[in-house]
């Protein structure tokens, strides 16, 4: 498998670390325990397109949001998780 890293180009999957579903958002400070519980533990297991967090540990060290088809392993796109700040060199 290969991931099209927006910073480095198409790279082998061995350079990346998988984290999982990119959709849960960390609840704000002092949020209820139930919201944090859902954020930490509850995940869907969807069939088809899925947005996931991957870390380019042996490359640019960017966290990526990778769109992967869980059925075909097709990876149509990947973007940086953190938007580049104005003035950051690419």
């Amino acid at each position: 498998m290969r991931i099209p890293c927006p910073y480095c180009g198409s790279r082998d999957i061995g350079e990346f670390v998988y984290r999982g579903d990119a959709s849960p958002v960390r609840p704000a400070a002092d949020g209820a325990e139930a919201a944090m519980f859902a954020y930490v533990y509850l995940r869907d297991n969807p069939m088809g397109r899925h947005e996931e967090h991957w870390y380019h540990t042996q490359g640019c060290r960017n966290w990526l949001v990778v769109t992967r088809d869980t059925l075909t392993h097709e990876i149509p796109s990947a973007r940086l998780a953190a938007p580049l700040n104005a003035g950051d060199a690419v």
Partner: protein
Amino acid sequence: MSRLASGGLIDRTRRLRFTWDGKALEGYHGDTLASALLANDVRLVARSFKYHRPRGILTAGAEEPNALVTLGSGAHADPNTPATTVPLTDGLVATSQNRWPSLRHDVMAVNQFASPIFVAGFYYKTFMWPKKAWEKLYEPLIRRAAGLGALSGLPDPDSYDREHAFCDLLVIGGGPAGLSAALAAGRAGLRVILADDGLEPGGWLLSCRDTIAGQTASNWARIAVAELGIMANVRVLPHTTIFGIYDGCEYAGVQHLGAGQPEPGQPRQRLWKIIASRALLATGAMERPIIFGGNDRPGVMMASAASSYVNHFAVAPGRRAVVFTATDSGWQTARDLIGAGVEVAAVVDPRGGGVPVDMAGIRRVRGLVRDVRGSAVRGADIATPDGKVERIDCDLVAMSGGWNPAIGLAAHLGQKPVWSEAIQSFLPGALPPGLAAIGAASGQFALGAILAQAHGAAAALAETLGAGGHAGEPSVAEDEACGVAPCWHVAGARTKAFVDFQHDVTDADVALAAREGYVSVEHMKRYTTLGMATDQGRTGQLNGHALLAAATGKTVAEAGTIRARPPAQPVAIGVLAGHHRDEAFRPARLAPSHGWATALGASFTDAGQWKRAQWYAQPHESDWLETVNREVLATRNAVGFCDVSTLGKIDVLGPDAGALLDRLYINTFSTLAVGKARYGVMLREDGMVMDDGTTTRFAEDNFFLTTTTANAARVLQHIDFARSVLWPDLDVQATSTTEHWATFSVAGPQSRALLADLLPEIDLSNAALPYMGARRFRWNGISARIYRLSFSGELAYEISVPADHGPALAQALHEAGATPYGTEALGVMRIEKGHPAGNELNGQTTAADLGFGRMMAKKKDFIGKVMAQRPGLTDPARPALVGLKPVDRAQRIRAGAHLLPVGAKPVAANDQGHVTSACFSPTLGHAIALGLLAHGPSRHGEQVVVHDPVRGADVLAEVCDPVFVDPEGVRLRG
């Protein structure tokens, strides 16, 4: 000898000697082991898997199910190699397998007389009782009786290589389609890799008598390969099998190097990982056997293989042949045999029709070969439609039941093949992304059409991919007849008729599976083991499916076919491992003082990938404990030093660095003064402790973190996640500097005096550099850092210099009189001080469990805060950190032992925790330990039983504070 007087592609000027079962034989350069054996009239080459039936050579290619041999001997022995794929080399040693005492007289051949009980499912039905006997008795016996060649059991003496390649177009197979496509794509300017699994590229062109562009087909192939060889944008990989297609247009192949035996100093095989934008499947087709009685006897051969042996290798596989064919290509084999002087007694064809004009005088029989006679073929019984049976004497039966496109690779990503009425076989349906099939693999069997189709496909790809060059014109050849009317099964055979030759699966086994309800091809496969041998049923699979379809009243299309999975061919484990074996199994990271420590005679231990000095034994010391005790006492009483460079080091820089650390750690760092260090604990979001370490603030916007050795990479990943996913608004960067700094801990009451001599430019007084103070300085003109940190509990400093100056600093500390100590002494001193380390930070402990509960800030948010407050994680009954001392001080406590109340039965219900770390404390003179004990902090002074059923008796221990030495911290502040 069966060698023909002339013809073939062998080099008759190069005689090669080889041995077969110890007997000296000769062949020529260009032979395979199989063709050389046939040339020497060796027809019996193997015993079958289950029945130990005599077997000969069935095919001329990698699909060979019968002729498995062991090459070489001793550590080099390579079992289960198809003789058809072995290039003959001078001095080759080959032996037969699965026979005792000899190939000709194999006592296990009695199995075939007991065959009525060895039917499908036999083992499941027979060896059920008693259950215990399966593992101890039945399985070892069955494994010894049924089987393949034996492994040497010795380490593999050969080496293996690995290479990655990228190309625009990968052409899989170098037959007519592959060569034609590679030529077109190469001329057009694409970056092309052509992988061919034959000993020489050319595929069927090396075995046929067709002409292409006025040349013999084999000549055309050699000229094409030569042209490809001089194109800078084309790479030809001969003797390379593509065995798998993976996600992302990745193809894996194995290249066999050095004509079967590696050349000195060279690898035996090379693993190729090829990333190809596009690929063309030009793997050709494989001929189907026909299921009739005795179709496995030596002397029964695929018709195409017979043509191959005659045309390619100049070997007559028999003297008098019966050709049994349901295809037009079988008639071509009859022509080839006649041309080689082999008498063709009859061509048996179930289809009606006459004899081609060029074969006048050849006898055509409309009928079926029902049985062959003889242990090796001596004759064939021909059944004709009028019900008569005629016996024809012969020593060769060449059979052709049809052609199966070799499309296994096309299904590796889950695509299903589809049935083609036109060719009466399966073709690729949907294909993996980027892959297209050409030639026989796409159902196109006529040579002229193949050349044109493959050329057109490659030229179109070149245009799509924007190659600028001109693909040229396709070579021209005539289209031969390729009609087929499949003949799946001959009914009424008097003797065993095999479907899967390698696993000894007969037509009766398939019928039995159907009767017993295994009506899906996947179930039938597993019940009968059809297609589960090393050849993966390449020859017999589809015949089996057709039999099952007939038995269940379905069409072959309805019955479907099984799913092909990688690897398409057996792959040696060694080539997958490549260079990653023995000491190169994984990378070794060496601490800066490694060379210096080695010279001093240190022993090393693995800490992840790091090699760390474990202790520095002196010549008179008889035992590691003596060494470690000396190192601990030297540090506690004078001064010692230890390389702690392996701890993870992370530089955090930016205006929001303090804010980020506040959210990462349970305690607060934004308030830390510049020039000060603070111990911190970080949690996972689920509330468990993730890591700990000290962090130093060198500037308002610059913090320097340390992590445990094991978690360095994970913590950096965690920090990057926090700053780019959780809080991208924070202006902060982080980078690893672990390998940049050599850091030594200098510990002991005399450490200040020693360093004052060594570093006179620094004021080391308590006022200038108090406990948890830090500053930058220059040592011999290079940047350096000093921290007043202590893991040992002594007055201690950590000094960092750039990594390549580490050995010089180690040398200087040693010469100044400090005693080097290793990780074992480091561990003893941290247990004496009750510091948690890897054994306690085990992913199941909370900050409160480890005594850091009060460090958790109340007023700020941090990762893990909410989850750590769940009732289950704040329960005082949770096992928490305590110290343990044996009541009888002479006794020893071992890590891993469980903690039980005194007098309680040693059962899981009474378990109250376990010992996490234990050692002998030379400072105290007895064993000590750290453990996690339920209600631990409130039980100091109580006694518990340390229960260690695996390694010894119970020990009575006293629960105490985990800090054994200097609990007030007087020494480290001294």
